[in-house]
């Protein structure tokens, strides 16, 4: 918490007291102007703050409050204060722990695949300026316009062992298509859907950043004898690291929310995708299907806090790359 104050209040000096003001251009009178101006700061953030409180902080608080109570099905709906019992249960609940592990696995697999592919496409596009490359750039981006529900519905069709094209495609090479909806393949099938949906967007972000690099840098590199690959790895990638951080953030957000795709795909693979496949889905089933709102809140809150801390640490550690000084 406190460490970030240095990061955020760069240069401008403390504004509330003014006594330790280091900025030479500030005079004694500016502190009163500043304190008036403070209100402007609050005014600017106020509308967002309302929404933030209403739809993030209060729900989180309410989830926490609910997680401290319990209501057994058989005990007549009487709500009892149980302290941290629900948390003890959650962290010894194999279903929840498995779900966490699964999300961790998705993070480890899905995020690098998406970003690697996006980076590769962006780098290749950056070296070309043909009509074909422009067209490909748009085509790669198009799936971003497809809502996740529709994407998952569509892939559900394509994965179908009977109607999907996989049988024909694999048949061309004399192979039998795997069953994409079996429990051994479902992980890869889900990774594929998400990758398909998001890589184009990430690619565009990285590509846009690549286009802003001054080409004279490449010239210098070429004179030094660097080939295309070396230029890409040593110069281009480091120079777009801020975009890369953004892309990692986007893809982490997507992965941690992982809900829509497995939920929709579940309608064609109920055995392979149990209702508690990810912690989000588990919380959803617990609440809406099993009427265990207290325990569901516990899962939701535990997950929320995990991510909250992780998110802060990640963004704090990458503050240099992302420009957050």
């Amino acid at each position, binding site marked *: 918490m406190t460490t970030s104050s240095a990061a*955020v209040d760069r240069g401008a000096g403390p504004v509330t007291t003014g006594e330790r003001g280091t900025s030479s251009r500030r005079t004694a009178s500016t502190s009163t102007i500043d304190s008036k101006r403070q209100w402007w700061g609050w005014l600017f953030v106020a509308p967002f703050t309302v929404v933030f409180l209403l739809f993030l902080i209060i729900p989180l608080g309410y989830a926490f409050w609910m997680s401290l109570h319990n209501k057994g099905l058989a005990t007549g709906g009487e709500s009892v204060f149980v302290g941290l019992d629900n948390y003890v249960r959650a962290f010894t609940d194999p279903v929840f722990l498995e779900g966490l592990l699964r999300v961790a696995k998705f993070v480890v697999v899905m995020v690098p695949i998406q970003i690697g592919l996006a980076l590769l496409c962006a780098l290749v596009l950056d070296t070309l300026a043909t009509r074909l490359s422009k067209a490909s750039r748009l085509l790669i981006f198009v799936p971003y316009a497809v809502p996740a529900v529709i994407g998952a519905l569509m892939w559900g069709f394509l994965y179908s062992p009977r109607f999907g094209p996989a049988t024909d495609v694999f048949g061309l090479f004399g192979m039998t298509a795997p069953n994409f909806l079996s429990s051994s393949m479902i992980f890869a099938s889900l990774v594929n859907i998400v990758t398909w949906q998001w890589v184009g967007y990430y690619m565009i972000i990285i590509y846009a950043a690549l286009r802003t690099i001054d080409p004279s840098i490449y010239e210098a590199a070429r004179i030094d004898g660097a080939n295309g690959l070396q230029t890409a790895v040593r110069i281009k990638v480091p120079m777009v690291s801020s975009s890369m951080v953004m892309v990692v953030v986007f893809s982490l957000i997507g992965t941690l929310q992982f809900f829509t795709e497995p939920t929709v795909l579940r309608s064609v693979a109920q055995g392979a995708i149990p209702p508690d496949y990810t912690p989000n889905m588990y919380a959803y089933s617990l609440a809406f299907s099993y009427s265990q709102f207290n325990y569901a809140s516990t899962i939701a809150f535990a997950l929320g806090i995990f991510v909250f801390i992780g998110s802060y640490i990640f963004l704090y550690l990458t503050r240099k790359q992302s420009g957050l000084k």
Partner: protein
Amino acid sequence: MTTDTSTSPAPTQRERRPGRGAKGGRRIGSHAFLVLMALYFVVPLWFLVVGSTKTNSGLFVGSGGALWFNDDFSLVDNIRGLFEHQGGIYWIWLRNSFIYALAGGIGATVLAILAGYGLAKYHFKGRTAYFTVLLGSVMVPLTALTIPTFVLLSDIGLINTMWAVILPSLLSPIGVYLVRVYSQEAIPSEMLDAGRVDGAGEVRLFVQVALPLLRPAIVTVLLLTTVFSWNNFFLPLAVLRDTDLLPVTVGLNQWQALSNAGAGGEQVWNLIVTGAFVSIIPLIAAFLGLQKYWQGGLSLGSIK
């Protein structure tokens, strides 16, 4: 300072880049790679195009297979079906999706711009703590909070109204974060101070100095939040009951549930596929038509 990096270098400079035209073989290789990638990203959509021309049973037992047309061509029938099935409710869903996407997208963007700018340029009390909380919440999955959000919305009597979908989608911590980071670099404090010396008010500074400089951030956040609202599934699923209020995503999913339902289900797979196809056309058209606006805007990330 790198505030100016959003302008692309002139194409003539790029002509001299290494790798361009260096070796024919590598260019062919690069092109082949791109074509392969483009195929991967487009073929599934091709399925929707082809599927929308098939009858309900033709989708499953047609002569064309999954990726080619059948002998009969029923696109017109299917589109007519979208107008007729359940009284043409599909078009109401599509309209709702637009309302949700625009209201959520524009609203969230406005809030994010104001807050991001405020956080970047005003050293108000509590800013550090505020920003810390914001950083933490950037990745918190909002789906996890649907249950308490539901209870809250029902307490203020908004369940089963359009507001129940729109208001929560105004929340975009990532948008605030992006604008905050961008403002810091793109809007020199000196410029604001100079404006203040000239007697400009804070609102005028924001509108006349900050907003023009923030254009790439606005484009980025607008795209992000609009697509997020357009994609929204979980929230409307939980807070809406009236079929008339559903966005197209939830509506199509409901048709799918009905098509898969055991008792008394109605199989309308042709309408689901055609509906899915029709629903993605506007956004794709918008992307293609407005590419020069958003592609330039997305260079936001290049600020370091």
